[in-house]
């Protein structure tokens, strides 16, 4: 009956030790590059690099699998949509060049009969998938490797009001709380002989709908308790406070920031050439 917590990397690495501001520089540069580049191979390489980084810093495999599970249908839809239907836009990017047909759906198939799946459309779909993946993987790479308390301090050092930084990190903590509430209810239901797997989806929905309001009330009750506790600990939201963690940028942080700044310039420089979509 372990309590869910803020998801964290499973090991300490040099990347984890970086200040969050250095990680934000990595985040910004990689996101910016992914946005301005339209070359699918470059973007896939970037996404693969970020994915490799996630594995290297110990982002839990379960979390990465969850991303894969949730996003696969969406990515499949992107690929199909671009491969079959994004003809005019892709042609415009290729100066009106004809697209290469990979296969055509037989005419006999309802609605989709006769549609052609193009190589260039598929590559453009892959490009969109890689952009999404880059962003999706950057979040755990930068956030899960950062102690939430350090995150608050780094955001404050970036001139974000303390109250806002605290609310931001508390919101991230609130998701595990809701998850915990739901898990607790499901576990309790099972311990009270309720086997959801034996019910039809409609019966299951009916039961869940009945308990949804109390679950939300339970979460609100906990949130209210937390507010009491915060006040009892002298929390007023005021920025006039100090920090145990002093968030001083190290030479490594400065090095990473300098490196990412250079990478940003490089990304901008190659965008009109290597970064272009060429089919």
């Amino acid at each position, binding site marked *: 009956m*372990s309590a869910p917590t803020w998801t964290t990397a499973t090991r300490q690495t040099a990347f984890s030790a970086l200040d969050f501001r250095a990680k934000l520089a990595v985040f910004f540069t990689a996101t910016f590059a992914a946005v301005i580049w339209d070359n699918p191979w470059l973007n896939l390489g970037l996404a693969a690099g970020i994915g490799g980084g996630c594995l290297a810093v110990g982002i839990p495999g379960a979390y990465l699998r969850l991303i894969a599970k949730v996003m696969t249908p969406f990515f499949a839809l992107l690929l199909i949509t671009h491969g079959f239907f994004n003809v005019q836009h892709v042609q415009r990017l290729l100066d009106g060049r004809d697209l290469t047909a990979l296969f055509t759906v037989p005419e006999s198939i309802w609605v989709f009969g006769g549609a052609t799946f193009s190589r260039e459309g598929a590559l453009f779909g892959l490009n969109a998938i890689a952009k999404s993946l880059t962003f999706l993987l950057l979040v755990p790479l930068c956030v899960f490797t950062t102690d939430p308390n350090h995150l608050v301090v780094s955001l404050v050092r970036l001139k974000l009001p303390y109250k806002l930084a605290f609310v931001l990190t508390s919101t991230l903590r609130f998701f595990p709380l809701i998850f915990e509430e739901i898990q607790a209810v499901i576990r309790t239901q099972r311990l009270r002989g309720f086997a959801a797997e034996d019910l039809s989806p409609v019966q299951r929905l009916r039961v869940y709908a009945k308990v949804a309001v109390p679950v939300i009330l339970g979460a609100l009750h906990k949130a209210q308790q937390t*507010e009491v506790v915060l*006040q009892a600990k002298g929390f007023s939201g005021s920025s006039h406070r100090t920090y145990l963690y002093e968030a001083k940028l190290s030479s490594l942080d400065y090095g990473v920031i300098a490196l990412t700044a250079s990478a940003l310039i490089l990304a901008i420089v190659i965008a009109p050439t290597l970064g272009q979509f060429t089919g």
Partner: protein
Amino acid sequence: MPPTPAPLVSLRDVSYAYPSSTAPVLRDLSFDIAPGEIVALLGPSGAGKTTLCLALMGIVPQFYRGRFFGELVVDGQDVLTEPIHALSRSVGLVLQDPAAQLVTASVENEVAFALENAALTASEIRERVAAALTAVGLEALAKKHPHELSGGQQQRLALAAALAQQPPLIVLDEPTSQLDPASTEEVFALIRRLNASHGTTFLVASHAMEEVAATATRALVLDAGRLAADAPVAEVIRDPALFPRLHLRRPEVTQAYAELAAHGLWPADQSWPCTLAEGMAGLTQLPPAQPFQPAPPAAPDRGSPILALRDVTHTYPDGTTALRKINLEIPRGEYCLLIGENGAGKSTLLQHFLNLLRPTAGDVLIDGVSLSDFKVAELARRIGYVPQNPDQQLFNATVEDEVAFSLQNTDLTPDEKSARLEQALAAMNLEHLRAAHPFSLSKGDRARVVIAAVLSLDPEVLIFDEPTTGQDAAGARAILDLTRDLHAKGRTIVIVTHHLYLMPEYARRVMVMGEGQLLLDAPVREAFHATELLARTAVRPTQAVALARASHPQNRAISPAEFVASFAREEASP
């Protein structure tokens, strides 16, 4: 003559009612607390102890609103007008549920949080965090996430967070309710130490009467929101009428000497001891005790064990081995206790009984069939589980819905379901509360709702995890009496508890766990007197056991009544 110091806390005619209730929870309270006092706050459940604790910090009425009358001043600040965050510099508050008090992501940050809010320098914060964590024995866990700690460790962390603020007043609401006996002793020893070294004033609401008697200098007793007594703690404990009237529990040593006095074995004009040391000293004034060693109860002979563990080992994904080759059999119809220090592996073992965890090696059997053959929900109809914290188990809008939930997935007819519902409500005396929202009830009532929900399935085995935590003596006794009734009806009962003093009348057998191993599995009398082994597990013998052993080497009494009997028999003999 030196001037009398100004009181740290001053209440004048304080009454308070929550917004949703018509009756006041606090009524006409007037008292002072002087700097440096250790004051115990006693009273039955619902007497207003928690509300008073919250009022000292201004949370009542500033946060909860409601109607507040009178004047309450703490450290020169009016709790009605001074913001709560400002009052927090004068008052450290530790609430009953430690998990609800954790707001940061590491142990050291949890302690540092209030100090950061008070804008102390980083070096001072570091010093205070280190000192507070050392004081509660958590220095090695400074980098851990608070949710990774056990309940007992979380409670110590909450205390450390209050200590680090170094406020003149620390208010503790049931600070040891989830701690094993050794940790409970440590917390009270810490209170005494801080009081002596820093002059910190403490107000402690607690049912741990043995430690209260040894620590507090004064007791305030609340009864339905009114001040029923305000006197030195020993005087309050010895009051022959007060404790019985409020269904409060005296320390075992006091109870034993009160009964000795009633039998004419202790001078009527001499006060009853309140601490174990006083009780031990009093033994010299008693006649010689007799050997007392009744035969253990016969094990129930009802065929093969209903639950069995065969070489069960469990290792968590992080590599922690919580159970090591446990072999155990629980006969049908047994009533057993599972005891051990916080972190001994008790919870892990329970989860194996419920199929919430699977053994890494070995097997768990019910009636000879491996539990791996059952779904959790199937098993729930045979093994009922009453968890420690009722709040995590309530998810319906009314008490009736909560109790009836378990029945909806059964094959019972509507009439049978209705009958089961009524039986369960009646067994826990909840009929009049059936339309209430579970969260609107007191903690004791919420626990009874959960028990009723489990009872509605009429399981063969009932597992209770710390059922008496947070209950007053009457509430605890009501729950334990229910377990005895269920046992008498043939149910197998397993209880996890730190409250050994409550159990002699109920349990037949005790399983002692330590470091993931089953250290002892013996009849209750033998286990209670296995003092050397218990000492290794942070489970202390009860005061009755300590007195018995000191009175005669063969005195195996396990309750105050038995201890008295070991003398009374000699008196009765010609």
